[in-house]
């Protein structure tokens, strides 16, 4: 069980996250939706301290920490329990596909190189890119890069995988292959927190959908309920925009 309490983040005078409480069960797939600039990316980035929150407590995988005040060692411990998939893939430009995945295993988990490469090969195969081991990011399509980005996150065996709009930088032709990899993970019950505009993914795979606005959680529930009977007028207004064909 992952427990987040009172997460607050300000940029100057701008309160971007305003006391977020969030529990995520093991194996749960949680999707976050909400208008632009509402703090979704910041929420994810606070989860692994890419942003330093102003307040908040997090318990994850036997580790409890005060997000605003933890030291470097605790920050590393948290990052080693989480994995991040970036909107713009952010593959290491100086490493090929295999090493992008193996890097963490070698440097952070200190596996012997052979073992790390063997594991990285398994992951490459799982994301359908066994034949691109030696390709550098610049030689791969957006869809291929993002599948490796997910592969790199998979190498962590993380207690929580964070996805920040993993398909929104992609040309439409590559979206499905990335969603397929995410579906594979979801079906394997990898705990994940996903910010996305892909309502199909939310509807088909999420256990819970969270609607955020103005740095707060406005409403949450299983997709079958939230998408068909949203209680809050703000949720309704947002869904009407992103699901133009739906009756909400």
């Amino acid at each position: 069980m992952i427990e987040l309490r009172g997460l607050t983040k300000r940029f100057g005078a701008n309160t971007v996250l305003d006391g977020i409480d969030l529990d995520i069960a093991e194996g749960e797939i949680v999707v976050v939706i909400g208008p632009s600039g509402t703090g979704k990316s910041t929420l994810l980035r606070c989860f692994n301290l890419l942003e330093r929150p102003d307040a908040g407590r997090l318990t994850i995988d036997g580790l409890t920490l005060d997000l605003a005040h933890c030291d470097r060692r605790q920050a590393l411990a948290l990052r080693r329990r989480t994995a991040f998939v970036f909107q713009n893939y952010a593959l290491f430009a100086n490493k090929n596909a295999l090493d992008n995945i193996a890097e963490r295993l070698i440097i952070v988990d200190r596996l012997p190189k052979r073992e790390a490469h063997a594991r990285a090969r398994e992951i490459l195969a799982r994301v359908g890119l066994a034949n691109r081991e030696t390709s550098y990011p610049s030689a791969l399509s957006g869809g291929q890069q993002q599948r490796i980005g997910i592969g790199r996150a998979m190498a962590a065996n993380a207690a929580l995988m964070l996805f920040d709009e993993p398909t929104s930088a992609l040309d439409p032709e590559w979206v499905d292959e990335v969603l397929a990899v995410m579906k594979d993970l979801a079906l394997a019950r990898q705990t994940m927190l996903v910010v996305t505009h892909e309502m199909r993914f939310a509807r088909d795979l999420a256990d819970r959908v969270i609607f955020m606005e103005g740095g707060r959680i406005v409403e949450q529930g299983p997709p079958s309920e939230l998408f068909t009977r949203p209680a809050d007028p703000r949720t309704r207004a947002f869904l009407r925009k992103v699901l133009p064909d739906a009756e909400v």
Partner: protein
Amino acid sequence: MSLDFDYMLVLAPILLGYLPLTLQMATIAMALALVLASLLAIVRVLRTPVLYQATGLFISFFRGTPLLVQLFLFYYGLPQVLSFMTRIDGVTAAVMGLTLHFSAYMAESIRAAIVGVDRSQTDAALSIGMTQAQMMRRIVLPQAVRVALPTLVNYFIDMIKSTSLAFTLGVTEMMGATQKEAASSFLYFEAFLTVAVIYWVVVETLSFVQRRLERWLGRAYRR
């Protein structure tokens, strides 16, 4: 004007005998300067308190004074005030001077290249649980070096040419040897022309290697 071509042909192999020393000094100084410049650059980027000010002073001094003055300072000056340096030889003093002098320049190119590495690369490195040091060593510096490489090779070329100053510290490297040969043959023009051609060929060879190296380092970025 007549050119004693035969003399040049005899002299060339003699001078080439001193090329290894010249290259050795330049290579060792370059290797040390690369390490020192990287450390300086990292301090400049991270703005580590105290170290930041200290490195600023260091860089300012070694860029702000002539290399020849620095070499004399090390070779003739320091032993007078630091007793443990009394037995410093010319080669060591030259390597030291070249290292410090060029590291100050190289630090600035490396710093600029580090700052140029995309934020998403450092985010990704931190997200997989790397420490700052690991991130620098594994992700940021390799990408920065590629950007800084052409400039760094230019500094190496400059360094090779600057080793000739070591002859003022009594080191018989290529330039020192030329000086001696010329003094006994009185064929100054031929002697210095010969050594000039040798430096020239060495530098041109390096420029060729530079182009190959750039292509090799750029392999990750080509389709």
